[in-house]
């Protein structure tokens, strides 16, 4: 299982958009995980007050909740996001890292239910919270099969 967890984390970090943001999966266990995103001036959504765009929290939590849903099953599964609900609790300082944490709180053969939260200064003071549901598909496989010829 450890191999598949490392493989999921590695694959998700290397998705083009995650790579572009520099999103790191700092921990992935079966059904829980954590991320870290270093600040970047390109993430600013409020040019006057220099806050991150809310989409940064959305992207971090969507990515992490998806990875956690994949990791919750023995051997890992691919998942598709059915819905995602974001509570944007407070603004995010544009010059501090954004940390994320998520856990799968329920799963069955078809659906994984995941909650996640993001913070900057203190894990007890979240800046955003997310609840996502994911449709569960086949074994985790994100590498495109190369033509054998």
């Amino acid at each position, binding site marked *: 299982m450890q191999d598949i967890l490392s493989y999921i984390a590695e694959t998700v970090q290397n*998705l*083009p*958009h*995650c*790579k*572009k943001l520099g999103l790191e999966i700092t921990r992935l266990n079966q059904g829980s995980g954590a991320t870290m995103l270093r600040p970047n*001036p*390109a*993430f*600013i*959504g*409020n*040019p006057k007050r220099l806050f*991150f*765009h*809310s*989409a*940064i929290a*959305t*992207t*971090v*939590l*969507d*990515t992490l909740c*998806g990875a956690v849903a994949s990791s919750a099953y023995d051997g890992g599964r691919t998942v*598709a*996001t*059915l*819905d*995602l*609900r*974001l*509570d*944007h609790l407070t*603004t995010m300082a544009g010059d501090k890292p954004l940390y994320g944490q998520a856990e799968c709180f329920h799963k069955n053969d078809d659906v994984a239910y995941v909650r996640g939260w993001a913070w900057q200064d203190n894990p007890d003071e979240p800046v955003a919270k997310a609840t996502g549901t994911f449709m569960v598909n086949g074994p985790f*496989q*994100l590498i*495109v099969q190369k033509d054998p010829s």
Partner: protein
Amino acid sequence: MTTSLKKLQDFNELIAYADLVGLHIEEDDQGIITRLAAQQDNIGNEIIGAIHGGVVGGLLEHAASFHLLYELEDLKVTSRIINLSIDYLRPALLKDTFARAHVYKQGKRVVNVRIQAWQDDENRPVACGHAHFLIA
């Protein structure tokens, strides 16, 4: 009275995140729309070549914010997102994606907004959402 398109576009140009993922403010016969340009580095699923769900969520948030600037008459009114619920309906493939917002209730402090995103056909949305914004 609505805020002119040019003013919104000028403001959008100041937003680094809009430039990062390729968000543009445009207008059609029904009002303003937000366009997410097709960019390889917005991909979040390499097997089917689909845009990252977080970026699609960002498109909905951005479209809602700009729609509020557009409708709330003058740029002195600021809005802050409270929450957003996104339904992912179909994969958003590597093409331009559009989003249109609609205010279905405006109160004194809170605005309720629905947003829909599509690619080729507005009647076949790739995602939809509803959001609450605090206005002050």
